[in-house]
């Protein structure tokens, strides 16, 4: 019995999960600042009325691309060959490159304005820091649960041995 391997369905599920979070954030942003942002961004060209269909398709493509990158960097052969820090670094660089490409291709925001880039960098760092902290907390919690599980298992094994005697 092996651990359940990731398959195409888990990939699609995760991509749609990322997509739905992005669309929720985009919708809230459009509702709050859509009218002003619509003057400089194609994402908000409908103002506070909603998100253009083209932007939704572009975000879907980004969601699939970034999920694909995450899967690529968590593949067994990659984990075995590339140190964790280097993997995270490569993954971040490729995700940022992907966003930069989409920004320039579809005019998400003017490339010559520093404010949107700063906002993007802040969002990215915030999400990255949040993800890292969550992962560290999850690992610590798991370590505590495993130590407890090992203690319980050894107790039950000791009891079985006594019963056999």
């Amino acid at each position, binding site marked *: 019995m092996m651990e359940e391997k990731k398959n195409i369905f888990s990939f699609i599920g995760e991509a749609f999960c990322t997509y739905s979070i992005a669309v929720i954030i985009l919708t809230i942003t459009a509702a709050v600042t859509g009218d002003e942002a619509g003057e400089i961004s194609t994402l908000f060209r409908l103002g506070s009325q909603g998100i253009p269909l083209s932007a939704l398709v572009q975000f879907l493509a980004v969601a699939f691309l970034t999920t694909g990158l995450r899967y690529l960097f968590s593949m067994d052969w990659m*984990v075995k060959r590339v140190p*964790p820090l280097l993997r995270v670094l490569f993954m971040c660089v490729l995700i940022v490159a992907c966003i930069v490409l989409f920004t320039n291709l579809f005019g998400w925001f003017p490339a010559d304005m520093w404010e949107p880039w700063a906002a993007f960098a802040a969002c990215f760092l915030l999400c990255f820091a949040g993800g890292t902290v969550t992962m560290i907390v999850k690992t610590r919690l798991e370590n505590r649960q*495993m130590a407890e599980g090992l203690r319980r298992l050894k107790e039950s094994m000791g009891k079985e041995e006594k019963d056999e005697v």
Partner: protein
Amino acid sequence: MKITIQTDETQTEIAVDIRCPGLTPELEKVISLLRTLDMKLTGQKERSTYILDVSQVLYIDSADKKTFLYTENEVYESDLRLYELEEQLARADFIRAGKSSIVNLRRIMSLRSEIDGRIRVTMSNGEKLVVSRQYAGILKQRLGVK
């Protein structure tokens, strides 16, 4: 090879008699397999054969088509393949740690989950092993974490 089975209700335990002109590698393998049923393992070291209690073995690994049994301070070679030992030792709380190793749960001192999904295991002699991501889930299940 002639196989004779005698049933006797007065017998209190199973006895296996092997009559042969000499020991062959195949026969030694059969004996090793029989010993696992009795929770004993046969290990060779410096041309001598040792009978080990399963509980003495910390972990087992294979390299270059050879299987090695690791105790607190010694290493022995086994006649059996890793998959054969895995099948026999599952009831003795041995679990797969990777494609080429199985560990004795009873001899794990501590374990630590890594961010990349692997589990670093410290055995009772202080030796450190890694449970691959592929098998980490099984270990977690055994520990009641998953």
